[in-house]
């Protein structure tokens, strides 16, 4: 079980969070992209072997949506939200 750094609550057990998936590209203007680009935006999620930027919702805590960088090989949280070690 991961120990996830929440900017308000400190390090908390993974069981308090809901995984929000990896952070993909910003939402494009849907009227300015091709069909293929739109489908890519919706369906292609980053899945690296190594650090991945991902979101977690502290649903059973303060309600914060936070973003961390986690190494998928080791589960090391290589970058925590601002202000947290």
């Amino acid at each position, binding site marked *: *079980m*991961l*120990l996830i750094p929440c900017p308000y609550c400190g390090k908390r057990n*993974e069981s308090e969070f*809901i995984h*929000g998936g990896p952070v993909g590209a*910003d*939402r494009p*203007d*849907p*009227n300015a992209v091709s*069909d293929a680009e*739109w*489908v890519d935006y*919706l369906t292609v999620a980053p899945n690296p072997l190594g650090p991945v930027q991902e*979101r977690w*919702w502290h*649903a059973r805590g303060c*309600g*914060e*949506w936070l*973003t961390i960088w986690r190494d998928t090989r*080791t*589960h090391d949280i290589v970058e925590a939200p601002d202000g947290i070690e």
Partner: protein
Amino acid sequence: MGSSSRLFSGGRIDRNRPLHFRFNGRVYQGFEGDTLASALLANGVRVTARSFKYHRPRGIVGHGPEEPATLVELEGEDASGNRPATTVVLREGLSARSVNCWPSPGFDLGGVNQVLARFLPAGFYYKTFKWPNWHLFEPSIRKAAGLAAAPASPPASGHFEARHAHADVLVVGAGPAGLKGALESGRAGKRVFLADEGTEAGGSLLNRTLTIGARPAMGWVADAVAELHGMKNVTHLQNATVWAYREHNLLIVNERAPEQDSILERSWRVRAGEVVIATGATERAMVFGGNDRPGVMLASSVQAYVNRWGVAPGKRVALFTNNNSAYAVAADLAAAGIIVTAILDSRENVPPEALELVPDLPVHAATVAAGIFGHKRVRAVLAAPVSGGTPKWIRCDVLAHSGGWNPTVHLWSQSRSSLRYDEGMAAFLPDEAAQTCRAVGAAAGDLTLDQIVEGGADLPYAIEPLWRVDVPVQRGRAFLDIQNDVSVSDVHLALREGYCNVEHVKRYTTGGMGIDQGKTGNINIIGTVAMQQGLALPQVGTTTFRSPYTPVSFGAIGGLREDSVLFPYRHTPVTRWNKSNGAVMYEAGARWRRPGYFPKPGESLQEAVNRECRAVREGVGVYDGSPLGTFELKGRDVSEFLDFIYSNVMSSLKPGDGRYGLMLSDDGLILDDGVAFRLDEHRWMISTSTGHADTVNQHMEKLLQTEYPDWQVMITTVTSQWNNATICGPRAREVMQALGTDIDLSPQAFPFMSLRDGTVAGFPARVVRVSFTGELSYEVNVAPRHMAALWDKVMDAGAPFSILPVGSESNHVLRVEKGFLSLGHEVDGTIDAYDLGMGWVMSKKKPDYLGKRSVMLRRAGSATRRELVGILPEDPNQQIPEGAPLTPGGHRQATEGLVTACVWSVVNRRWVGLALLENGQARHGETAHVRLRDAVIPVTVTEPVFHDPDGPRLRS
């Protein structure tokens, strides 16, 4: 019963406290301090089990969790299956029996498999899938599969418990290295958590006769334990196995004998700053013909039975080794008066310090065991010179063997830390740590006491690896995995058939997949693969170590988290009234307990529902709508935000007005439906379906916090701040007037889809004109503290109008009559608003909102859509099961839709239904066919509305 094998003195047992126990129906006696295994050996019971596949007779091999052969099923109050007899602590009245044999391990009818053995090689099971037909083998395989049965019922008394703990240092194992580590950290003032799987501290020192300084090593252990118990910062548990090493230094401990009698087992989840792995080492078996015969035991285990339990497993013991540790065993046996008939050592040059330990014993260097004489017990061992001289039989009743030592790296590896192969020790040792942990003592390869504790005296360790005996005179099967009956020839077969990777060898042969997880045999399998392929061991590598390290009961993992505790039900303030008025209560989404219907005595479900529905259609009814998800949104950008998350335009609403809307996710699927009301310029209230409230909250918060942080929108969940009684039916207005309100109820002043604040029956209230029933409807929202009183007043004020409470069953009927959609019924992951005939809800004015692009993209394709239709069974009295498929012409072929709902309509006095049907909107008036298993039901396709299609009643 055999003769007693208990030594006259010695051992850490209490001879003044005899214990009686049953094994396979017979009564025996042991002592306090015994395990089931030591007590069986003391009673001369040699055949204790039958093997899994071939039903070969087996005895006790080890003395701890490594035991591969003797699994037992405990009966009575501590019923559980597949417990190694070596880890079952003896108690008065214990009752156990062997697994894998019937009627007894001594006379086992399954033993016929020994004759069939050559037809049951590795991969036999998989091959039955291929040829000639699995069903030919299935009955007998199913009968033979599995070990002990699961207990018939949970324990009659007591419960399981879970606890969380934090520690600066978690020390795993209370042997010499673990105790030393715990003392150092404890003295430094750190919070220490020390857990050990044994019944008492000491680890390997319990089984040996070593000294530290000038006194017995167990004296040092007693001092260490006493000092630890004096430290408030130290938690010390025995009978507590650390079985899993998870991410970020979370380890799980299974404590089996907590101090409180009411607690059966306790599961600790310990988050540790640092982990000290002092798990010791496990002795490897030797691989030679007949190495599974009862009486062939691990040398260190024979030593443990003699020293710790005062039991002589045999009268005449021969040893077979490739390393020094067996010489200390031989010395201990001789000191206990047991005859050592021979020490076979595969090494040509036995180190002199080993020989010095056993000056009077016959040592045969460069000699291996090549066979065992005896079926149900060892009678002699075949000693064969490695160089090929004449073998000879040496008499013995126990053969104690040692193939070397494996540091117990299970937890180390579970932490994802790496291993390296050490040529000198012929073992895999901890290498790079992946988390904050370190291995110490034997787990780190320091196998002798002098390396761990200052003043410890021990025989230096030296080994020449021997992965399997390979001499021409060898007789009998040589087993690598005794529990799963995997022999050397099975591994060779797997390699011949192309399963060359060690992970594939493991799965094909099942070697190492037993309950013991191959603790004594896995490295021999790797060695055998390496020998056969001409590789070095590191090139073959190990299989993956996974949790649990030893078996853990499901009860301990679950703890107190059974259903009602983990997911408590939610109730509204009306629950008590509902129950006392005969409601049938059940869950209706998101753990809310709601009334299903209110039957009168003797009334059926259908009769009760019809009565409630008629009240709403002809008079008035009331239901408790409190569970609906409700959110208040405040801020400058709420209207822009709502326009983005709903498919229709909300921003044009005036304060007091509301609108029905669909929420889509950006992939174009329908996330939820509900209503939004504008309370003020920058203040809104939205409601969601009961079951999707949490999902919608997550959806909105994610958007606002991650993608659109600049938008000023604050969301407050107010589901539990507003309760409501929804009064519905043609006479609802009269009931409202009878209740008394300062709100003008005229349709002009308070029309459909609007909201008014005021007082109702003396309570501050927010009244909303929405309707899920299709009738005139007032949703009277009050604070929860007023809800029960409001409900009573509604029932009183409604009495002259014969008001009835309405349950969720009737709600379902009423919404189907109106063709109102219900998420999960009419909406699945393929349906969009156009399919539902609700294209009007998809704004054409807005250039962008969530889901728009995806819906348009999908509809631009030419795929046939399933569309919402009404269905009327040709026989009006014919009910259709919800979910039934529609097929073209009712033929047995691919479906063209399904029935999403079917109810008895009180206004139409017939069964009516809703369905999703391919091209359904163009097929009104046609006949479609519901295909059941044994019947075809013709139905007429209609508009999906059966009552008040134009809505004057709704808006009245």
